[in-house]
């Protein structure tokens, strides 16, 4: 009997008798119908993309959201810092006062003088 079954249970080759008996027991038939069912379900499922494509897909809305948030944040901060009727230049000068040196530096239209720039660092 053992020879018919292909040797000992340690045999490294598939056992035709055990294999055939299990195959007969486990096979339900109509694989074509099953495949059709799977393909119908798959028709509604997306095909996988590479992980990098997926990350890139996540990144695009993330970058857009960050840009919108930065614009809105800048607008909100600007509204807080700049009083109505005040220009941005005025607001910067106001923010730098009370130092007359920094005010002179900010209001000067020419390139800053080295000594003035140094004074802004040294002076409290």
């Amino acid at each position: 009997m053992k020879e018919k079954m292909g040797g000992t249970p340690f045999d490294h080759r598939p056992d035709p008798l055990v294999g055939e008996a299990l195959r007969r027991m486990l096979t339900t038939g109509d694989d074509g119908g099953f495949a059709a069912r799977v393909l119908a379900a798959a028709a509604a499922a997306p095909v996988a993309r590479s992980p990098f494509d997926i990350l890139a897909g996540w990144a695009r809305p993330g970058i857009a959201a960050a840009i919108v948030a930065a614009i809105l944040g800048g607008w909100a901060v600007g509204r807080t810092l700049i009083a109505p009727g005040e220009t941005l230049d005025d607001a910067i000068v106001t923010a730098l006062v009370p130092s007359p040196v920094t005010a002179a530096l900010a209001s000067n239209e020419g390139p800053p003088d080295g000594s003035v720039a140094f004074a802004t660092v040294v002076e409290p």
Partner: protein
Amino acid sequence: MALESQPPGGVPRIGLGDEAELVARTLAGDRAAFGTLVERYAGQARRVARAVLGDPDDADDAAQDAFLSALLKLAQYDPRRPFGPWLMRIVANSATDRRRRRAVRRTDPLEPGLVGGGTRPDIAAERAALGERLRSALDELTPRRRLAVVLFDVEGYSHAEIAQVLRIPEGTVRSEVFHARRRLRALLADWKEAE
């Protein structure tokens, strides 16, 4: 492909290049290529799922979930490796998850159709009896042992491939196959002697 991985009279093993090409075509949006993969592996996936779950309807649901999961994970498949073990791992996981989730219930009796239609009533009855005994014997085995013997003796995978599927050492696969076979062979021997 090693000789030992050729199933006896079973599903012919598919060439590596062929599988890789089918996967690449599926990823490019070719649904027919995926259909070819499903048709080739449908029987195998259903048997493996049934080895874990017992119930044929549950097994089909698990196998279907596995194919859909494989479709979604297809970009993760390494085309340098054979497709079968990769897919069977997903099938085994799907069936095992379903087994854990479902309420504990008795295994359904074998359907008459499972033992082959169109045969003489006495042969059909014999096969049904053997099928029931095999089912009982399989139920006594752990799911991992069942998977190991089905993947080896029915589907023709090598010990190394089964080790990949089950994520266990190759030596453990040999041990699992040995214990499962010993049980099943004893049962089949009794049945043969009783004939």
